[in-house]
């Protein structure tokens, strides 16, 4: 894509005209040379810029796709001008945002492209809130030295990076989950669902997962011994993170650390992710660390709620008994309205 800069072209033409008139009236050789030079320069300027653009390479990479809050997400930008002509007016247009805090700001990075030189740049994006960072690199403009013509190189690169809340070791007495009898209850967990509790050790049967093998006992028994887990008794902990208002960031932190705590004590739980736009829920069962990240990611994609009590109200409509649900809002974990855990005051990073 190319763009002509009309104001500069007009200014340039007026300048040439001025010197032409001066040369005409005063008949000086130096002025005549200036006029000639001014006529020649735009052509050379655009021509050499065009040639240099063809040999330009632009590489953009995201170093890590997941970081912890307070740490920067780093994008490396590698520009290589392989021509002999310096390009002094390179502009990279990009935008970035935390999906919870949308930003309309468009950024432009102005860098020179020296001839035959690689120009690496590290762009650190400092974070202060958890969420999903999205980076969009749109295009790279190069304007010729006289600013008469702009050449555009389309990039259309998109990156995503999750910003995890900071880790904090928390603990609190875990309430017993409410038992659901009705299969239509969305919180209903049919029996037979495997829990994290080991019921017994038995011999290996084909089809058992290798991860369930109890290697210590197997070594003792000189045969493969597999852990058999307790089946779910038809009830499971239910976490309901409430993404709302200014407590959003604290909610994420509390949620993340609650999940980690529960996983550490081998509690299986379900996370209900409320989608604020259509007031629906996505359920993710968490049994291990990996699932926490999955839940977080799903949470990052969810639209925050329009009201504090909306998620619970919506859930209550879909269940017979909303008791026992662990609400996470801000730094508190609440069950039936009572805080079972209150986190420490968070300091701004």
């Amino acid at each position, binding site marked *: 894509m190319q763009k002509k800069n009309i104001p500069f072209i007009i200014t340039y033409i007026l300048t040439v005209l001025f010197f032409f008139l001066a040369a005409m009236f005063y008949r000086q050789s*130096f002025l005549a*040379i200036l006029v000639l030079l001014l006529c*020649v320069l735009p052509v050379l300027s655009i021509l050499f810029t065009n040639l240099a653009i063809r040999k330009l390479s632009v590489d953009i990479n995201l170093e890590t796709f997941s970081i912890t809050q307070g740490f920067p997400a780093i994008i490396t930008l590698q520009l290589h001008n392989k021509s002999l002509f310096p390009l002094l007016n390179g502009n990279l247009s990009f935008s970035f945002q*935390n999906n919870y805090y949308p930003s309309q700001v468009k950024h*432009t990075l102005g860098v020179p492209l020296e001839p035959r030189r690689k120009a690496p740049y590290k762009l*650190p994006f400092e974070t202060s809130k958890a969420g999903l960072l999205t980076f969009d690199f749109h295009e790279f403009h190069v304007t010729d030295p006289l600013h008469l013509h702009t050449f555009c*190189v389309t990039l259309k690169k998109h990156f995503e990076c999750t910003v995890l809340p900071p880790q904090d070791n928390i603990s609190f007495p875990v309430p017993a989950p409410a038992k659901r009898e009705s299969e239509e209850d969305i919180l209903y967990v049919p029996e037979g669902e495997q829990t994290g509790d080991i019921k017994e050790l038995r011999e290996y049967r084909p089809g058992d997962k290798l991860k369930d093998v109890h290697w210590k006992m197997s070594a003792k028994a000189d045969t493969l011994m597999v852990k058999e887990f307790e089946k779910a008794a038809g009830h499971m902990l239910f976490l309901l993170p409430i993404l709302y208002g200014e407590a959003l*960031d604290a909610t994420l932190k509390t949620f993340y650390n609650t999940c980690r705590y529960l996983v550490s004590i081998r509690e299986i739980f379900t996370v209900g992710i409320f989608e604020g736009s259509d007031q629906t829920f996505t359920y993710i069962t968490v049994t291990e660390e990996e699932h926490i990240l999955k839940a977080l990611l799903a949470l990052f994609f969810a639209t925050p709620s329009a009201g504090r009590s909306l998620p619970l109200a919506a859930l209550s409509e879909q269940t017979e008994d909303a008791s026992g649900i662990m609400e996470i809002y801000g730094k508190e974990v609440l069950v039936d309205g009572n805080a079972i855990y209150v986190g420490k005051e968070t300091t701004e990073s």
Partner: protein
Amino acid sequence: MQSMLEKRQLKVKAKTLQEYGVVLGEITPGHQAGRVLSCLARALLIFLGVAGTLFCTVTPFDLPFNMPLVFLSLAVMSLFVSFLYYNRITFYVGYLLLFVLITMTAFLLYWYINSGYQAFTNVVSAAYSDYFGLSSYREATEHITNRYITVTTTLCALGFILCIFLNIALGYMNLVVTFLLTFPLIQIPLYIGRVPNPIFGAFLLSLYITVGILSRSRHFKIPPYTQKKMTFLHIQKKKKMTHNYLASGFGVFTTTLVSILLSIVFLFVTNGLFYTDLGSKTETNIVKAKTDEFLKIFSQTGLSGFFNRYSSTGGLANGKLGGVSTVRPDYQYDLSITYVPYTYDTLYLRSYVGDTYAFDEFMHTLPEAYDASFSISQNDRESFTPNSSEDHSVVTHISPENTSDTSMSYKPAYAWMEIVNLDNAISAQFYPYDTLLSYANTANFTHPAKHYYEGILPLSLAESDALLSEYELTPTPSLHAIDDDLQAQEGDISTISFYTPYSFDTPAKDNLSLPAGYEDYVYENYLQVPEELTEALSDVIKEIGLTNHTRENNASSAREDILKNARLLDNYFLENFDYTMSPGVTPRNRDVVEYFLTTQKRGYCMHYAASSAVLLRMVGIPTRYVEGYVIKATDLEDATAVADAYDNWYFLENDLADTGLVNVRITDGNAHAWTEIYLDGHGWIPYEFTPPSTGDDLFTGGFSFFSLMSDLFRTTDNAMSNLTDNIGDVSTPSKRHQGLRFIRSMSFLLKPLAFIGLFVALLSVVLLNLHRIKLSLKNRQALRKQDYSTALRCSIMQYKWKLSHKGLLHNHAGLREMMHYYEEKLSSTEVSEKHTLSDSDIICLQDISAKALYSKNPISAAEYDTAIHILGNARFLSK
């Protein structure tokens, strides 16, 4: 410590982080732009600018100076000023040092710099004078005459100042300011067609190109000294945030080198044009003519020439005083006088008489003077015409001694003076002192003479007409008045038959021809002084020691008293005042005479004549302000001898042994103003109060800022070395013819434009198609070697280039993208071309291409042909 900018940026960053949760931190470039490199790059630019400007300006004039030393000092200065912004220490210490250096230079080397500057301006004035054909030009005194030293010193000093200003301009990369700092100076030689060395021209051109390129690039700024680690400048405007890389020393260097190369190549290509003298005085136009006028004034009189409130050509001002900053004679001939010199004293030819002083003007308001009771017989008169062969033995030699016999009515003695008016601007008649106009004659008519000139001349005369005026010598001053109705035209000739100047050595005698009551008339009408001046000038009168004059019965003692006062005043001027042709204008709220006597204390004849007239009036001595022309002894040295025999022109005994009939041409430089004093019982006498010019009117009495500045611009005197023949105006053809000739003369630009345009077009075509040409050659080479894989690769690359050139494909798209593009088009309903790639074509092409591109086994000729055939069948599909 953080700068304000840093603090502001940190604040914005913190706010953004709080609001949006993410912010772009400090960008780290892979290689830091060294401040040293950036400063060096700027030093190079400064050096190019300063060296280019100074040497382009000075070298076309033959001024001696030490070029290597100036080069070296400019280089050192450029480095010094460019590193001022390296860090905080260099900033403070550097500027302090700068201040000390400038002050020391000003005090220690002031006269060297002044002399060097004056040397340059004198040479330039002379060059401009030659160019314009002026007969005079501004010349100032060089106190130190060794130009080699003074010009070198001046160049170094000027270079230093220019380095500082350029450093500031380049700090902002402002092309306009850079241009204004450099271009006007080089116009000094270029305007008059003096071409400098092209290398210095290349310096300047490369500076302009570099600054023009960098001025919009935003990457030339050396970060301020407090922001050592900050290499990016973050600016937010509404919803747009820009992060600009601040300093690219390498980029500036490469751009400068590219510009230098381009300039040198360009000058090499246009070499013929650069050395061609395009300036031609015949190819003039109204714009150049106006500029030429401006420059003529400047080269003649310097800057002060522009402060005249009204035009002053140096001729008669007709009583208007004070509005002239610098007298600017044009040195064109005004009068041509043929006569027989008989004395080396200055001959005064009186014209304008001012009797009433008011509002900075000596006006002529009083009516004509009395008639005197002289009579001359017609016979006597008629017998005395030029070239008459009649015997003039009837002429009696009149000497001052003869006049003691009051009873004798003397017979008049005659001499002729022919005055030809050469300048149409002059509308006055000129009369020598102590003569009577007795006869006036033209070729067309004769009229009886009057004893006193009363304005009987006709209003217009043809140029060839000769106006003959006959003047009769009188032993005592006669009463002259001027008639404003006189309108002598160019070419008028007045022939004065007799004359004699007033001699200061001759004691004044009683003048029996004074009519009764005339003296009363004089004392009633010629003592006028504006009231506001009496108080202002009373201190001056006391300082001079002038005594009040009262009329006495004893005319002789009255005359003594008057002359004593006149001498006191004369001495006062000699001791306390200076003569200059460039005194400066009188402020509008001050009276000319008062300002001159109390503040200015320097001026030319007008000032002295008017002031003395006013001062003497204040003590009761009647005076008049007179303007006219003078013929000095030096003018006689340039006179042209007309004839040795002069009997028909002069009938008295001549004190000069070696004399004859001569013709003297005088210019407006001979215009003069003096005072007439009335001596009781004697009449009006001219009195010269203007002190002689010493040729050096620089104020050396003390140091003042004014004198420091004015010394740079003040002229000493007009260097009227040799009167050259007047250069007549170039005959101007008709306007239409002028216009056509002017347009045709612009062909000097057409040829170089066409040449360069063709060159650039060829270069563009070659460069734009270079890639294709290379691919094509490689393709052919590969086919010759039967390397079909390479040949197909080249063909695909060429095809891709076509697509991207048409904007149908991205520049960096690969083969897959190319195939994808065709797949998209095939599935689109917009396809209208008949020949397109089918699915099988695409697959086939992909397979063969993949094999050619990635496989170690080469493709066969048949596969190559198939692929080429498919590519050939494909057409560019519109977007």
